[in-house]
């Protein structure tokens, strides 16, 4: 009985490896307009300002590939903490022998996971993406400084998250892709910052109406290019 189960599992694992051993890359590429975003470098939105990004992290979860409307691949326990300034984290992989026309994923952590207690890996609360005074994951974190902010060290901090209505910040992203080769998803931070008006709003630190609004703009920062 036990033996048969092992043999069966072995077969599954072998075929799984055979089918999926070929991997394509899916790269998250942070940009400021068309330039690659680098930490501690000053950028310009307009003539008068200068902006520096010190931290840019977010969760990508429930990664899926679709062919037309049909889901052709779904990643198991799919949670990735992406640190835009850490090369190791910005590359995800997808199987290469599957034809797909769309990539689907979420920015943030779903509500069920949010209420399921302590978890490990990228979801470990030591990763700095968990609120301590009120339970919940921070889906998306963008920090930096700008002369537009009338704050200490001209800092701005946007910690977007919240899993309960009416402040659910989870975002679903669909990206159309043409070729099957390695896909790069560019994320233009400048687009978010243009939306914010840093002179008026310089921090969001809890689930709120503002967090929901800004989260809704994250999907608009994406564009696709191919390696």
């Amino acid at each position, binding site marked *: 009985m*036990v033996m048969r189960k092992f043999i069966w599992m072995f077969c599954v694992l072998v075929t799984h490896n055979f089918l999926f051993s070929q991997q394509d890359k899916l790269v998250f590429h942070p940009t400021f307009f068309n330039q690659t975003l680098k930490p501690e470098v000053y950028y310009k939105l307009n003539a008068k300002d200068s902006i520096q990004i010190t931290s840019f992290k977010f969760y990508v979860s429930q990664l899926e590939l679709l062919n037309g409307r049909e889901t052709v691949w779904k990643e198991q326990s799919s949670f990735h903490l992406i640190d835009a300034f850490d090369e190791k984290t910005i590359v995800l992989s997808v199987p290469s022998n599957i034809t797909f026309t769309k990539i689907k994923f979420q920015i943030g952590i779903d509500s069920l996971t949010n209420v*399921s207690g302590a978890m490990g890996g990228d979801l470990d609360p*030591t990763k700095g993406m968990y609120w301590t*005074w*009120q339970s919940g994951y921070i889906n998306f974190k963008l920090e930096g400084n700008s002369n537009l902010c009338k704050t200490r060290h001209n800092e701005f901090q946007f910690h977007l998250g919240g899993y309960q209505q009416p402040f659910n910040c989870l975002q679903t992203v669909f990206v159309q892709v043409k070729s099957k080769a390695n896909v790069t998803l560019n994320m233009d931070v400048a687009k978010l910052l243009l939306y914010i008006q840093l002179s008026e709003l310089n921090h969001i630190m809890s689930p709120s109406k503002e967090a929901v609004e800004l989260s809704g703009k994250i999907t608009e920062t994406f564009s696709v290019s191919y390696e």
Partner: protein
Amino acid sequence: MNKKWGIAIIMCLALCAFNIATEHIFEVPKNWPKPTYNSNKNPLTKEKVELGRELFYDPILSKNNLISCASCHSPYTAFTHVDHDLSHGIDDRIGTRNSPALMNLAWHHLYMWDGAINHLDMQALAPISHPDEMGEKIESVVLKLQHSKKYSKLFLKAYGDTVVTGEHTLKAISQFMLTLISANSKYDSVMRKQSHFTEQESKGYQLFKQHCASCHTEPLFTHTGFENNGLPIDSTLNDIGRMRITKNPQDSLKFKVPTLRNIEFSFPYMHDGRFKKISDVLKHYTSGIVHSKTLAKSLQQPILLSSNDKVDLTTFLLTLTDKVFLFNPKHSFPKK
């Protein structure tokens, strides 16, 4: 074939033994509801509970290595902080709320007076990180534990791995807290038909069921939800309770209904520790209720209690004292 059956039987036995072992650590009292905590995701073992207990009593969790969970949740007072209305933390900083008694937490679904914490595992993060409580970061706690010989051993025993993670640290603390079950008061033995209430306690029990049980529901003596029980606002704190989290005006001034088990020992009372004695609390319910928009329906009509009634009700409340729980050596400071 025989051999395979042998293996199967041994595995079954091992599984049974494991089940018996866990049941012994965490036993649901007879006729109690199913716990809300899903222990399938964090199966209790003796070693993990023991690790959790060490952590609970260890000031290593605080920035200055002086404050432990037990500094505010002492075992001899049903795991609350007795000498202060508002809890005292690191550098003697004073918090804004009274530390609640800790027991039967596996049956709660939200934690803190305002329900800010959605899972017992995540609870410890709040005091560890709070600048007025332990003023530390979970990242540094994990590093400190990683560098400690004692904890390397304890983590190895509990998880088969000397690598300390946030997840394992938090789950171990949960395990210890899950074992804090109070179900051995006189009230419980009466319910199990092992003893009898006195006439006075019986009268008190009737009054309790009439006036208090809608919120302080048996057998936990809390329905674990949020209510406004008519306390006047303390204008120095301006605590709006549950609304702080939901931002919904209908939740204004609602606080988590605390358990009344071991109430004899868990003074001072209420979220800000404003009452020192049970008689102060009864005075509030009979003549101190403030009528605001969110006041609970069951408190809209005045509660009338004669002075005899008050004595009876208090006598009943004292039957909720559970000496087995309060003096359980398994809950106290771990011996070296």
